[in-house]
């Protein structure tokens, strides 16, 4: 969508400005892509109005996610030319925080609501096509995400990114897109494209967190050439602990999905074996208010997709 177009533009520019690409233009280009994503969501909101209210927190999450990406691509990216710690702040913001916020904003659901039936069918066809389905599998998305990081930090790519603006743009786009794909393949309100079991998603997440924390500690000992050791250590710890915050959030969302599904499935079982307890506790048996926030997301996906007949919400039913 917007980001894909952005990547297309980037490659286009890359051919024309191989040498003469200064520091400013590619930042402007990145900001234009983000502005496009901001405008696109707003247009979709207006177009989807007839299909009922859209939760305000999702809209807020979208713009917060874009803000994170903008901070990462603007001031932080500028500082990253001289500071490894700033580079890592950019990585955590662009590759982890922004993707999570953007995924929670349910852009695909909004797009399907906004488009007329024919358009929504086309989008669904593309989403269900072999290309998207392949990269949207948790294993593939995890490999793209973690593999990209390993390439970046264990090869010369790290230095090339800071000397070649077009390459920097491609790598930044990859970080954001791979982060988005990975997050969306595990959690989030948009219907997942693969009916992957919760067990597989949990395993992929644990393996990714392992790879991320091992890479952070490896960088602590072996910062990229030319990076000041103290700067390298601070940056590595930022990667480790900043990554932890986002990864734990992903774990909470994944477990909340299980909790929700177990509640639906266990409603009958609880009636059978825990009826006494449920009766004693009155309304408590239906769940605690804290857990309900996430719960509202699923019916919206179901409603959006079944009403449209476009995307079957496989993700909503396989959390077991």
């Amino acid at each position, binding site marked *: 969508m917007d980001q894909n177009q952005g990547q297309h533009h980037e490659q286009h520019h890359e051919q024309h400005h191989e040498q003469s690409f200064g520091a400013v233009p590619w930042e402007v280009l990145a900001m234009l892509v983000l502005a496009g994503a901001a405008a696109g969501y707003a247009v979709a909101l207006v177009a989807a109005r007839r299909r009922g209210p859209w939760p305000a927190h999702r809209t807020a999450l979208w713009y917060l996610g874009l803000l994170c990406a903008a901070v990462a691509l603007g001031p932080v990216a500028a500082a990253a030319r001289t500071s490894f710690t700033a580079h890592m702040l950019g990585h955590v913001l662009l590759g982890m925080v922004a993707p999570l916020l953007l995924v929670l904003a349910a852009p695909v659901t909004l797009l399907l609501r906004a488009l007329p039936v024919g358009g929504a069918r086309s989008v669904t066809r593309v989403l269900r096509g072999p290309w998207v389905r392949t990269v949207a599998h948790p294993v593939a998305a995890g490999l793209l995400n973690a593999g990209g990081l390993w390439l970046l930090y264990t090869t010369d790519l790290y230095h090339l990114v800071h000397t070649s603006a077009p390459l920097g743009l491609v790598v930044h786009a990859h970080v954001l897109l791979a982060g988005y794909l990975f997050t969306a393949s595990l959690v989030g309100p948009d219907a997942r494209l693969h009916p992957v079991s919760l067990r597989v998603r*949990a395993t992929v*997440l*644990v*393996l*990714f*967190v*392992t*790879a991320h*924390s*091992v890479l952070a*500690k*490896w960088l*602590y*000992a072996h910062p990229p050439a030319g990076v000041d050791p103290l700067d390298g*250590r601070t940056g590595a*710890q930022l990667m*480790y602990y900043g990554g*932890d915050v986002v*990864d*734990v959030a992903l*774990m*909470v969302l994944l*477990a*909340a999905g*299980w*909790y929700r599904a*177990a*509640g639906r499935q*266990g409603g009958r*079982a*609880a009636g059978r*074996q*825990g009826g*006494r*307890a*449920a009766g*004693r*506790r009155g309304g*408590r*048996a*239906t*769940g*605690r208010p804290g*857990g309900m926030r996430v719960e509202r997301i699923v019916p919206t996906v179901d409603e959006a997709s079944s009403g449209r007949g476009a995307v079957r919400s496989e993700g909503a039913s396989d959390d077991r």
Partner: protein
Amino acid sequence: MSTAAPTGRSPDDRPGPPEGPPVGTDRRTVLSGFLFGCGIAASMIDLFVFHLGLQWHHFYDLSTTEVALAADGALHALGWFITVWSLFLLADVRRRAEVAWRRWTGAVLAGVGAFQLFDGVVDHKLLGIHQIRYGVDLLPYDTAWIGSAVVVLVIGLLVLRRTRPVATGG
């Protein structure tokens, strides 16, 4: 884990829980407590007490082999994962039945003890991921670490035994 239901005498030495929770719920209570104990021992006790509090050992001592580094990373990831998951298991028990808090606490102690024992033996001694403290004679530290782990584990198992539901189903 062996903590689930130690077989033996019936726990007559204390008034058993007047309403025994359903068996599935009981197993889930113990599992939740045990995972929570392992999880906080793996991801929080070490971080807050030894890294940030006492500063006996640090983020990474730079002497670790690659295998140990990978094992450490996996442990770190699993530690957070089971901490989070155990709390959702607990929430699930809580919405189905009354939580047997003493039993859950016993399982937490057993989990903390089991993990610390594992950490003290496998991580510190066999893999050598890091030591407890640097520049000192390690023997008293290792003894205290492993000894306290065993004590906590045994206390946890004893509490679990005393709080077994009256109707043991398996």
